[in-house]
């Protein structure tokens, strides 16, 4: 019908978006940002049983310059927040952030003066993973979901439009407190 039917074998058609997504999601290189107990579960995620090397992620880069995924594993204290931001800024684009554990997602059980109540106060987060600490299987699940998200990331004009649309949605969306009557 279209030109696809008439192509000789050995030629593949795809979109740049598809290709970028495929490449970027293939092997994240996590930056070591293990802070507390979640860091231990992140280490077991890299360890033999829950081998993250299956997806190319056993290479935990110490230098943020060489990493593209920052797994914030653990509670971020007020003293550590500027360091977190600095490491995030040092990562080159494209970069993603996975908030591992409740302390990184929302401050967790430590609702007090010393802990930043969610790293999204400091860096933009792409995936939140609850748990205290989340099992390595949960981290694997979060990774898979993040990979799906990265796989389908729009580029170019699509990205600009998607960002604008997301911003519009978030401006219009009701806050959590206003969403009443859900228990009925």
């Amino acid at each position: 019908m279209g030109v696809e039917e008439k192509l000789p074998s050995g030629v593949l058609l795809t979109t740049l978006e598809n290709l970028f997504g495929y490449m970027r999601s293939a092997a994240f290189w996590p930056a070591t940002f293990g802070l507390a107990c979640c860091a231990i579960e992140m280490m077991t995620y890299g360890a033999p049983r829950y081998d993250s090397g299956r997806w190319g992620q056993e290479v935990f880069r110490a230098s943020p310059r060489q990493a593209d995924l920052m797994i914030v594993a653990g509670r971020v204290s007020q003293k550590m927040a500027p360091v977190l931001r600095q490491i995030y800024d040092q990562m080159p684009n494209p970069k993603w952030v996975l908030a591992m554990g409740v302390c990184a997602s929302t401050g967790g059980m430590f609702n007090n003066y010393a802990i930043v109540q969610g790293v999204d106060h400091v860096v933009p987060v792409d995936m939140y993973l609850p748990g205290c600490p989340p099992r390595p299987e949960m981290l694997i699940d979060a990774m898979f979901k993040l990979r799906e998200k990265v796989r389908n990331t729009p580029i170019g004009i699509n990205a600009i439009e998607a960002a604008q649309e997301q911003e519009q949605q978030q401006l219009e969306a009701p806050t959590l407190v206003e969403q009443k009557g859900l228990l009925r």
Partner: protein
Amino acid sequence: MSTTDTTDEATEQDPFAAGGDAAEGHVYTVTGQDWDSLVSEQAERGDERIVVNMGPQHPSTHGVLRLILELEGESVTEARCGIGYLHTGIEKNMEFRNWTQGVTFCTRMDYLAPLHNETTYCLGVERLLDIEAEIPEKANVLRVLMLELNRISSHLVCIATGGMEIGALTVMTIGFREREKVLDAFELITGLRMNHAYIRPGGVAQDLPDKALDFVKDLVVWMKKHLPEYAAFCNENPVFKARLSGVGHLDLAGCLALGITGPPLRATGYDWDLRKKQPYCGYESYDFEVQTWDTMDAYGRFRIRLNEMWQSLKIIEQCVERLEKMRGEPIMIADKKIAWPAQLSIGSDGMGNSNEYIKHIMGQSMEALIHHFKLVTEGFRVPPGQAYVPIESPRGELGAHVVSDGGTRPFRAHFRDPSFTNLQAMPVMCEGAMVSDVVVAVASLDPVMGGVDR
């Protein structure tokens, strides 16, 4: 990557500098491929002092520890620790929770030995409650079992990460492989892999499931088969010995002055172990030996940790033997006004109180219902006073200074964490050594930043 991060030229702002960072003297920002210019610039200036920040984010500093090193070439002339990057305010948080809920908070301090945190806190609370003599025998044996399993898992992490930091990556993979087995045992007995909140004032939270003892026996067999691998990898390995022997030297006087306990103290040859000297939880009835070494260096501490794992296995076998004979015995104190009431089980709709227990409190015993309600909502009251019951955690003396004002909440719970105190020895061990020795010395102290910063 270690960079100095303060202002570049006198008038230029370094984009990486945190606001308010005081800059003393000339600072170099290294971005790569500019080693020659850096060296020539420094030679022109003629001052030799370079302060390097092994910053909070670093693969080899055992967590969020900031090491501020003044270097002369490769040698460290001055070293300081910057801590507080993981300060969570756990102690203050505990002042707003019940005594029993405090267990869930303190367990997250030293996150590699959570059961040890819980135990020292519970022992302090029990001393204030004056129920130390009424803790059931089975609860004590279970506590010892969990404490020793935790000791093994903690030492495995220390050895694994220590190996990783010096480049022995296989030690890391086998360490975590063994640790997974221990975590499976924890999951079977307490329900969680880490941060268990299992040891509560009055006893332990849940009884052993049916297959637990067989599992632990299999675990012991597995460990005995695989622990020699670590010895085979490391003990006589020339590179390992060269990296660790003579590094991080700290003699007995230094240890006592600096308040060091645990493997670094026992590496000086002094057999100080609170399990033997000031026993708790029935440790005096177990047969094990305190491991010492006499080289006062990182290698000695490593050998001690390996040997302590073998001794822990010995204690675990004795615990299992005792537990076989204790089936059906209570695991919580008999006094219903303190004993944690909930009996959890998995039902058709998830986890909750078991059906028998619900029938009991709703149908059979009014007092049980009242106790359950009062204990879960308000908690028990602890008579005023203060107590300090230290235990031997894998890192040293861990003690909880518990102050009560007669209420249902801790008035003050301060934890004397071994890592906090042991890290004070870092400058003593590192000044005069090389940068690579700093990494090894800190790893041999085995600091866990959760305990350091709390």
